[in-house]
């Protein structure tokens, strides 16, 4: 029954390999992990096992415990400390301020109460002209960042606004200036959170331009 044994062996190998399949919490079997895992620090990844793959650099640096996971010990000095490996991101040069692609400095006005907002934004001006193309860009951005609360037409008719008592502003009725809208997107107002970290200043001006067009004449 040699053939029978061979068949059994083939099936056994097959079943063993079937266990390599990913699913649930199991990421599956990896082939050549030291080619898969980044030596440089990879964003959104975590060091879960600092000893994994220690054999990789055991020959070159037997004293350094290596691993596949963001393991390059030339990355930042604190990665020498294997117990608390950290990112090697650099801080900006001291006393410098980053300008964006348009050469703008960061927007610095603070969040203020509703009464003072017009004082804060007084003198501000939308750096973009309200052209058709810009409004179209603003519309796309509005769909990404605003529509799920303020609704497609701006009348707060979205699923979220009708489902939860959030007090979503009706953008078709209110007469807000563009700088006012810009300030509100940046710092939030009422129940609306601050969106300054999500939406870049140029995108905020584009959205403000589009929101102005939502008003019912």
């Amino acid at each position, binding site marked *: 029954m040699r053939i029978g044994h061979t068949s059994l062996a083939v099936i056994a190998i097959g079943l063993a390999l079937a266990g390599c399949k990913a699913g649930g919490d199991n990421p599956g079997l990896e082939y050549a992990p030291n080619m898969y895992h980044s030596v440089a620090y990879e964003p959104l990844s975590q060091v879960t096992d600092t000893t994994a793959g220690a054999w990789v650099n055991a020959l070159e640096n037997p004293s350094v415990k290596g691993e596949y996971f963001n393991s390059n010990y030339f990355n930042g000095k604190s990665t020498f400390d294997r117990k608390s490996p950290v990112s090697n991101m650099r801080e900006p040069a001291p006393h410098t301020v980053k300008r964006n692609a348009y050469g703008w400095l960061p927007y610095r006005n603070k969040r203020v109460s509703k009464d003072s907002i017009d004082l804060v934004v007084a003198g501000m001006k939308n750096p973009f002209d309200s052209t058709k193309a810009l409004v179209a860009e603003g519309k796309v951005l509005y769909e990404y960042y605003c529509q799920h609360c303020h609704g497609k037409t701006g009348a707060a008719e979205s699923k979220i606004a009708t489902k939860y008592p959030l*007090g979503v502003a009706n953008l078709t009725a209110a007469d807000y200036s563009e700088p006012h809208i810009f300030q509100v997107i940046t710092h939030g107002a009422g129940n609306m959170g601050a969106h300054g970290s999500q939406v870049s200043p140029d995108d905020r001006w584009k959205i403000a331009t589009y929101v102005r067009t939502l008003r019912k004449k």
Partner: protein
Amino acid sequence: MMNYRAARFSIFLISAFLFLAPSLSAQTVPTDDESVKNGETLFKNNCYSCHRVKEKWTGPALAGYQNRVPSIEWTIAWVKNSAKLIASGDEYANKIYNEYNKSQMTAFTNLKDEEILDILAYVEVEAAKPDAAPVVVTEDGAAPAAGVPSAYINAIIIGMIVILLLLLVVLGFIVSTLKRVVENRNLSEEEKEVVESPITLSTVTRSPGFIFLVIFLVTTVGFKTVIDGLFTIGVQQGYAPKQPIAFSHKIHAGENEVNCKYCHTGVMKGKQANIPSPNICMNCHTQIKTESPEIKKIYAAIGYDPATGTYSGKTEPIKWVRIHNIPDLAYFNHAQHVNVAGIECQTCHGPIEEMEVVYQYSLLTMGWCIDCHRKTEVNGKDNAYYDKLIQLHEQSKGKNNKMKVEDIGGLECAKCHY
């Protein structure tokens, strides 16, 4: 939440109130259709964000307001500037203010007295209407529709089993009848041997036909499992790890229609789509589902106290588990695919808006990448960068031959491996 005292207005308020009081004394809510209609528009535009007529929303339900407020004049003063009224020490105003966690109602100074009265007229008409029949929303709205075909399939399978059993019974009858016929005949020795040779388990298993069949089946199935198994090595398709917070894409992207790009802000700007930082969660979850144990995990991570709305400053990273791991030997950039090619998230990530727990939908193998680069036309719409390339391509290959990603170097090794 705006929460401020307008004490400095109090003197101003008292004088304004004294001035206004006599002129307001004769206010009555109109009942004519035009006022109601006008009131409806005004209500939808100004009040609907925070008020419903019959339901407690951000602010109180407005139905039956006339039985609660001190007077119509009070209502008008409240709508125009509630802060003033509160600061004046008005008893009912302060009661409402405290009842709603000291959240300030927007001051509608631009509304005229008549307009406010129109709104009130609309509210009274609307409140008098009988409640609409409750809309019955079943949890699994699609289930009945989906259940019908599976019931059919079950019926078909059961029917087939019954038919097979009947066939078996009929065959049994035929065999016994034939046996009886044979027994009543005079047979030669050779014929007897054939008829009486027993069909037992061992005679069947030793027959060459059976052995061939078994070996054939075992080897085919075996080799198929081995090859399939080998193909899953290094492929994480179907990987669905348990996350530290049970975030549901089905609820957010599906039911609530939040755009993918609202949270995954990096997707148009760089290589990574980004796991959103908790401040994006907090844009909604300072208000929504604040009692949920999963949301409390966010609060714990960022040191937020929902009762006071303050941050302690003690933070703890949320250890999300990365699902899609492109090997380090290949370079992939989201921005190029989303911005330039205009590919939908679902093309690679599958029906993400239906996933309770996210799993890796695509293979993410090199073959998978190459396949798409061979099939996909270059998106040259509104993109002057490709204009000349497309023109040249059509000149050399003909109008009907569309420029694919492979035609502009989409298959070159160094595009991804460097």
